[in-house]
């Protein structure tokens, strides 16, 4: 941690080294039933943990070669990745795989030892519904703006966005917009902060952020902060640390982060830490998990909490990664 953060009062300190240890411990919990029940999230979990470590300034805390080996062991012939060896290919795990390889600068390994970038791009592009522009999660057809964003995220990192019909996809996102300025999971669905992130980020990647009603959306997003400083995901719902990412990154993309109370949100996130064993939970006093740990840290990073690496609000990757790959 930087010198600056050490001078903060105890309740405002990030227990960074405990978080690093917590994340490192995740793959050693094979004697816990939960470890086996969550295998369908292994690759996503690796992405969540590794991104958190990068933001904490400890990118080396997970061994690079083993990480690449594991990621490549999840790849299928068709280019897609499953959540773990023996799990079917899916958009969500494929996006995580691309993000991990991007973060540790391992696209060359994907070319040399995996099925190659082009095959990954083909897998993703084939999941686009060419009539409506949206994307399915896998061959069985579930459609959701989460998958559309994931496709844009991974394809643009691979430099293969031209494999898909970007204009059609943009039309679909626009069709998901609601009167309150927000976006839903599909046309007709209620605005939801998670879905707003995926839609605004997809439009940003497509270079069409001008289609967002920034003023109305900014108002809606800023109203997500409730008493206690935390953010909720929809009107009249409880606060949750993960919205420190979905809401805040969206505010950042439309230039309205200053519309909420920075200090109160920082204090809320820090109250959700497990100060002894590391990790961050949804609300103070609850069980921690790697998912909330990442989104607590990305929130703090967007709020420029001292000592954290800057996070890219569109890609949910360290800024250093997107700068290296996209030159932004």
């Amino acid at each position, binding site marked *: 941690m930087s010198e600056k953060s050490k001078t903060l009062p105890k309740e405002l300190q990030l227990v960074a080294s405990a978080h690093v240890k917590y994340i490192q411990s995740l793959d050693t919990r094979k*004697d816990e039933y939960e470890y086996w029940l969550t*295998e*369908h999230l292994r690759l996503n979990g690796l992405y969540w943990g590794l991104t958190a470590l990068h933001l904490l300034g400890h990118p080396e805390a997970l061994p690079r070669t083993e990480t690449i080996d594991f990621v490549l062991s999840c790849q299928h012939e068709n280019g897609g990745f499953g959540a773990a060896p023996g799990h079917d290919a899916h958009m969500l795990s494929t996006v995580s795989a691309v993000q991990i390889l991007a973060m540790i600068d391992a696209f060359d390994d994907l070319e040399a030892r995996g099925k190659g970038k082009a095959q990954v791009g083909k897998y993703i592009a084939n999941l686009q519904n060419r009539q409506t522009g949206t994307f399915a999660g896998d061959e069985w057809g579930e459609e959701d703006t989460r998958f559309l964003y994931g496709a844009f995220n991974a394809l643009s990192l691979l430099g293969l966005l031209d494999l898909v019909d970007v204009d059609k996809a943009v039309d679909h996102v626009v069709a998901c917009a609601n009167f309150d300025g927000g976006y839903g999971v599909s*046309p007709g669905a*209620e605005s939801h902060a998670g879905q707003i992130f*995926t839609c605004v980020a997809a439009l940003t990647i497509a270079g069409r952020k001008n289609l967002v009603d920034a003023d109305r959306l900014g108002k809606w997003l800023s109203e997500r902060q409730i008493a206690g400083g935390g953010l909720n995901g929809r009107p009249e719902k409880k606060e949750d640390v993960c919205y420190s990412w979905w809401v805040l990154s969206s505010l950042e993309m439309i230039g309205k982060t200053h519309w909420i109370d920075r200090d109160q949100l920082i204090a809320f996130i820090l109250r959700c830490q497990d100060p002894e064993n590391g990790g961050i939970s949804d609300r103070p006093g609850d*069980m921690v998990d790697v998912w909330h740990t990442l989104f607590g840290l990305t929130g703090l990073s967007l709020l420029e909490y001292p000592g954290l690496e800057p996070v890219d609000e569109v890609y949910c990757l360290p800024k250093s990664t997107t700068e290296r790959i996209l030159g932004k």
Partner: protein
Amino acid sequence: MADQGGSAHGIARTSRVRTEEQRKVELDKIAKYRELEDQVRSGVARGDTSPGLFQLTSKLLRLNPEYYTVWNVRRRLLTSGLLSKSSAASSPLTVSLTASPTATTTPPSAALSSSSLSATQPSPASPTAGRSGTTADSPAGEGKVSAADATPEAAAAAGQKKDFDVLKSELEFTIPLLLDSPKCYWIWSYRLWLLQQVIDRLSVSMARRVWQEELGLASKMLTRDRRNFHAWGYRRHVVAQLESPRLGGESMVEAEFEYTTRMIRMDLSNFSAWHSRSKLIPRLLDERGADDSTRKGFLDEELGLIREALNVGPEDQSLWYYHQFLILNLVNPVGHPTLTPAFSLEDRVTYVTREIQDIKELLEDYDDVKLIYEALLEYTLYLGQLQGRKLDGAEKDELAEWLQKLKKLDPMRNGRWTELERECGLVEMEAFET
């Protein structure tokens, strides 16, 4: 990505220390789980398509409904033997789960090219194809195809009966899992895949019967959690399908509108219901063939309803968002469906002015509710825009007063109030005051 399950929501933090006995019990549980998983995996690897493997997937999914690969194993077992071979539409990617509010004019779900996905296509026809074997736990289904079904018609009817039984049994299998994990994406998506099979494989009347029951499930799930967006999305999809010509349907917009009224009466704070209402209204009015005066009457009623609600709950955001929806219809009628297209500019100004007046009256009882000031600010700015004029001195004074109130009542959003102050040209006034 958005929550995919597996994260700990709302579970109290407890000490991780286990006794040796607890550890042993957990290790035993792990061993049993992994053995079951191994059995399923090795069955798949040998190309087993038997009801035995099917039952193992039931057991595994009951332990872990998030195991999406096992749901896929189950789909492949169904399409490669347990369901009849008659359907041409059993290949993947023929189901579009996107609910469309204009379903009556939407073509049948879009089929994507599945040829490009050959690497993960279900295995080819299995040696046990045509064999009976249906339900999650008792594979001896009632719809056996026997030698008695000699004629092609009889065989087809028997095939449909068998598929009906299999699919019904599958739908039942997922119910307890959904009740336990109402936010599990994989169960909802498996269920929708089954329902697509129902459309592809059964006669219109049989399929309609099955789909109609889904409305009951959606209602049940929404009774348990009024805001579950999976259940609301499911409901929209089910309604869109029931309305579609493929299921011989007709518009259900009146009934669905009624449903939102019931949900709102039960709980004014249910924004999901208000949202749904906002999406149904333009269609409702079109389908009623509402003339201009009916539309005006409708708007009056909605404004009355929401005003009544605001009188008792002005601190509820859900109500204000719906109010905003109605006001935007007046202020910004271009580019989206509108309730009252025939309103003149004068009508619009009259309505917005009246709403501002009514909201000001709310202040008499609730002068410390920040949402009231927000609405006043917003609508006053709309009024200026609507009339294409700058705000006058009196209005500016009011804006300045409301902004001061907001800064006091809602300091969390001070960045927003300060910016608004600047945009409205009120900064000098503030400087003058201090």
